[in-house]
């Protein structure tokens, strides 16, 4: 049963990922990526990361992908132009990089520990829930948490400044 649930969601995620990188139309890619992220949210539930699964759908499949959809719609049909064939050596290079990664990955698999038993999960019933996450995030990881909020503020300011088109228009005047 557990394996069946995992297999179904893993299949959804992988099919979505393959579709994302193979559609020519970016809006189809974006929707495929949403499917992939939904599959991953299901995988997170099987890992007892319930709050993370909810956030995956709200923040990733919701907010971030809406941002992508907005950008694609703003650029309109021009974003759909036929793309030339990439350099063949890049495809070879990507194969080589993947092969190198497989080496590292096999090493990680070899030393992968068994899953902790359900009763062995720290805090038992709060594992992966909002209160459990908050305990760790607000105590152990308070500084990174605050730094992430600063990072988001900087990102908002940068996005607004770049979006105002000032830098690029000055470039065109010259």
């Amino acid at each position: 049963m557990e394996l069946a649930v995992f297999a179904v969601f893993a299949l959804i995620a992988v099919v979505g990922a393959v579709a994302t990188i193979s559609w020519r139309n970016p809006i189809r890619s974006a929707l495929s990526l949403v499917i992939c992220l939904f599959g991953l949210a299901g995988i997170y539930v099987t890992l007892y990361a319930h709050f993370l699964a909810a956030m995956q759908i709200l923040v990733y499949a919701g907010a971030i992908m809406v941002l992508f959809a907005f950008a694609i719609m703003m650029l309109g049909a021009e974003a759909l132009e036929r793309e030339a064939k990439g350099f063949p050596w890049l495809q070879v290079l990507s194969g080589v990089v993947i092969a190198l990664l497989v080496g590292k990955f096999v090493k990680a698999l070899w030393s992968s520990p068994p899953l902790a038993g359900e009763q062995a999960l720290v805090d038992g019933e709060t594992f992966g829930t909002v209160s459990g996450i908050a305990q760790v995030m607000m105590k152990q990881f308070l500084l990174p948490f605050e730094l992430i909020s600063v990072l988001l503020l900087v990102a908002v300011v940068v996005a607004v400044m770049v979006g105002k088109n000032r830098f690029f228009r000055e470039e065109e005047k010259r």
Partner: protein
Amino acid sequence: MMGVELSYYLLLAFVLFALGLVGVMIRRNLIIMLMSVELMLNGANLALVAYSRARGDMDGQVLAFFVMGLAAAEAAVGLALLIGVYRHVKTLDVDKMTTLKG
């Protein structure tokens, strides 16, 4: 009755990361390259959450939240830059952005 082992999750995480990497390397459309980067971040996130489950503590999940925040910032800045670049060079094909080429 077969259970799910940590290695299954790691395999899935690796497949997602590899697909994202292939997408960045072989696609030429900037939007799709950005989406492939999101795919790679998600693969890394899955590995973090899987190890968090295996070790039985929530540090990995909290790190995954931080990665999500990072991904949101990356998407906002990346798409703003992408639109600026598009206004400037009128294309999203990275092979046609040859202003710096001698």
